[in-house]
């Protein structure tokens, strides 16, 4: 009987050998940086410029809550000289892994260093991780990246500092632009309704009331009462538009639109906001600056 299954055993061993044969990696003198989200990758591209090669694990449209590793992600982390991630539990259980890798090479959580008083606390010592929607906080993330790059590659310190400064200026311009645009919306209409509660910081920064349908997590269920309450709220406040996000299924917010229609109030779907990820290369939101501007424009044009 052993003989009959011998060929299977041989196959197993052969397959193991095949799987273990190491893949050759191409080396060049650019700094290899890997990030989790596209927003952080964008910072690194702007600050690092021609000296870095950046790859992100979560590509366009990928919700970090729903991210699943592919086999290629192993080598992205393996070949990196430097890794940046968001932190504040945005990456979920992967945070453990990133901290472990941190014992061997520089791994930096761009959001963890921010003064906790500036963050939105969602529970006891638990903080809202979506800090990229407050430009002032995001600037601190940029500084983290700048410092991280300089520590690993001090040779190009001047260039990193210069590029970081330029990027910080661009962010400040964007912040000013957003403030000016939001001013165009009448005060009592500054209410942002979305399916996914990622806009807490955005609302706080620009004085917009943010009402979400679900909790913070994309995976958690929303209650019947949530839908009901939201519909009543929309009808009562005469809200013109609700928003769908690129990384959340449209179904949940469409339920709300139909609910309002039943109560004779026409609420529009105000266009797509980017929440947890940048847009693809063909979209108008493939960098952080464009993504943020696109969100502001979408919100202003439908609520104004």
């Amino acid at each position: 009987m052993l003989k009959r299954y011998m060929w299977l055993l041989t196959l197993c061993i052969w397959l193991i050998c095949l799987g273990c044969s190491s893949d050759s990696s191409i080396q060049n003198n650019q700094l290899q940086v890997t990030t989790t989200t596209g927003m952080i990758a964008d910072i690194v591209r702007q600050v690092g410029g021609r000296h870095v090669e950046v790859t992100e694990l979560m590509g366009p449209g990928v919700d970090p809550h729903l991210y699943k590793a592919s086999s290629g992600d192993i080598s992205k982390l393996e070949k990196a000289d430097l890794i940046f991630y968001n932190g504040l539990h945005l990456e979920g259980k992967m945070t453990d892994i990133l901290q472990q890798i941190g014992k061997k090479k520089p791994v930096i959580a761009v959001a963890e260093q921010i003064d906790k008083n500036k963050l939105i606390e969602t529970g006891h010592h638990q903080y809202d991780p979506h800090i990229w929607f407050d430009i002032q906080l995001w600037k601190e993330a940029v500084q983290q990246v700048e410092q991280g790059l300089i520590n690993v590659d001090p040779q190009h310190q001047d260039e990193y500092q210069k590029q970081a400064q330029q990027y910080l200026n661009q962010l400040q311009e964007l912040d000013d632009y957003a403030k000016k645009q939001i001013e165009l919306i009448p005060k009592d209409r500054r209410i942002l309704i979305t399916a996914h509660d990622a806009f807490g910081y955005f609302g706080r920064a620009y004085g917009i009331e943010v009402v979400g349908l679900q909790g913070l997590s994309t995976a958690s269920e929303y209650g019947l009462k949530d839908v009901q309450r939201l519909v009543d709220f929309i009808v009562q406040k005469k809200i013109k538009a609700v928003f769908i996000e690129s990384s959340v299924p449209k179904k949940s917010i469409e339920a709300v639109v139909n609910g309002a229609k039943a109560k004779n109030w026409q609420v529009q779907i105000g266009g797509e906001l980017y929440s947890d990820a940048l847009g693809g290369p063909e979209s108008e939101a493939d960098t952080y600056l464009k993504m943020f501007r696109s969100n502001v424009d979408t919100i202003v044009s439908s609520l104004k």
Partner: protein
Amino acid sequence: MSSFWIMLIGSLVASSCGILGCFLILRRMAMLGDAISHAILPGIVFAFLISGSRESFPMLVGATLVGLLSTIIIQWMKQNGVQADAALSVTFTALFALGVILISLYTRQIDLDLDCVLYGEIAYVQWDTWQLGDLNMGPRALWMVGGVFLLNLLIILLFFKQFKLTTFDPALAAAVGIPVAFFHYLLMGMVSLTTVASFESVGAILVVAMLIAPAATAYLWTDRFHLMLSLSILFGILSAIGGYLLAVPLDASIAGCMAMMAGILFLFSFLFAPRHGLVSKWWYQRKWYSKPQ
């Protein structure tokens, strides 16, 4: 090195699950793994409410306790006359619902779901190492699933006769004085421990698949129980290694590819297994009827 660890840990999970899967399939409780993967939701919520953190350890403790509890409830209901599949479904849906309710009551602002606080990712096992003092003991997952595998193997080998008899003929087992209920609970406890430890190390989909597919495949190849056990381990290992080799060129989810490989092996066996395969059945039938009477 990562590919070696992934294949080794995948194979260990597949082997543990393969052995237990044989018993589960024969007892018509194959969906137990899937049930546990849902039932442990309240466990992590309680663990979070008590410990106030989303660290892995409290989550694992909470999940293990509720996992054990759920298997005890299922077995208890089954022994008191509820159909196996009904007992299973009622328990896991009720517990899962309890978890959903708890989340919506107490922790709705916090990102707390199984995927992001409990389920591990097999792709990253090599980095999550166990540090004993200054000594690097290799991947933590290896110790978890390896330990569970050895424990399963030990218990099964020690009580092979008892397990076999209580699985195939509980009445006879009771008549010859084997504590049937004890062995049922023991097996359920092993399943719960194995699944929760494996969820934490490699994620849910792989465990649920490996608990069913390799054992079901082995069942198509043989009618002898000890052979079914060895074959299910073999098919499990083949799925783990083959799945990894499939995942690399595809750049796809490793656990997903391993589970799919297990499905492919099952499909192949379903068609071509020597006695129970569709093709061979058809072949024998044709031969039988074309024989001159």
